[in-house]
């Protein structure tokens, strides 16, 4: 078993222009190491649970979706480059929890994000990550460059 990495959490308030108010946000900056994923998911999930995300959404949907997004960012975005980081921002508002994962890679083709499907071959070893994210959260979007994913989970 790996020992905890003691991730550092930054807290801030972000302005929501559309709502003309601010919302609390936590941010983490992660190294591009797969071993950080478990702890990062725990930190984010526990924060969201403390802020009112309940039941299956907190214990399962958020955890798996975030795990997928972090793995993609570390493996495919940053290619496990030790000089690159992954930023995670979690913004809490009344209706929803917004989780952004941003890598420092050159980006992925956003078109291929639109309607991810399961692999044709059921016995394929990969190709299920994006599909799962879309199934587990309420809304997914990507930036134009393709190095940032934004996942939204409604409170209920």
């Amino acid at each position, binding site marked *: 078993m790996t020992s905890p990495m003691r991730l550092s959490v930054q807290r801030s308030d972000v302005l929501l222009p559309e709502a003309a108010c601010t919302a609390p946000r936590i941010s983490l900056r992660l190294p591009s190491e797969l071993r950080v994923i478990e702890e990062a998911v725990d930190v984010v999930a526990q924060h969201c649970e403390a802020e009112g995300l309940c039941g299956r959404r907190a214990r399962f949907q958020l955890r*798996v979706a975030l795990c997928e997004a972090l793995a993609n960012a570390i493996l495919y975005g940053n290619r496990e480059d030790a000089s690159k980081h992954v930023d995670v921002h979690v913004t809490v508002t009344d209706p929803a929890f917004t989780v952004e994962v941003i890598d420092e890679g050159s980006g992925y083709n956003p078109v291929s994000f639109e309607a991810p499907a399961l692999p044709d071959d059921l016995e394929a070893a990969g190709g299920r990550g994006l*599909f799962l994210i879309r199934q587990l959260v309420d809304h997914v979007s990507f930036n134009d460059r393709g190095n940032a994913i934004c996942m939204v989970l409604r409170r209920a």
Partner: protein
Amino acid sequence: MMGFSVRKDASGVVVIGVAGQLIVANRHELKEKVAEAVSFGSRKILIDFTDTGYIDSSGLGALVSLAKKLRESGGELRLAGLNEDLRTLFELTKLDTLFTITASPEEAIQGF
């Protein structure tokens, strides 16, 4: 925290328990545990998810690869102890049609 336990049932089935998560960071360890069991001649492998919180797509992919390899060498991989959340993952990805999944490890062992 993540971890794997390995025991051999009286009937010869190797039961590998997954504590915590089966994700990209530890899937290689599960593969190693299965490979070790196979190297000792075991062909009936049960993965027990009774103590598993969640699985990611890498974990699912590892299970698919392991099942295929075992089948090709005349063996069988079964899964047991999936909670409702984990069963949802298998249903969403249609992998519930690929594996023999039982509610309890005992049922899986009896069915080999």
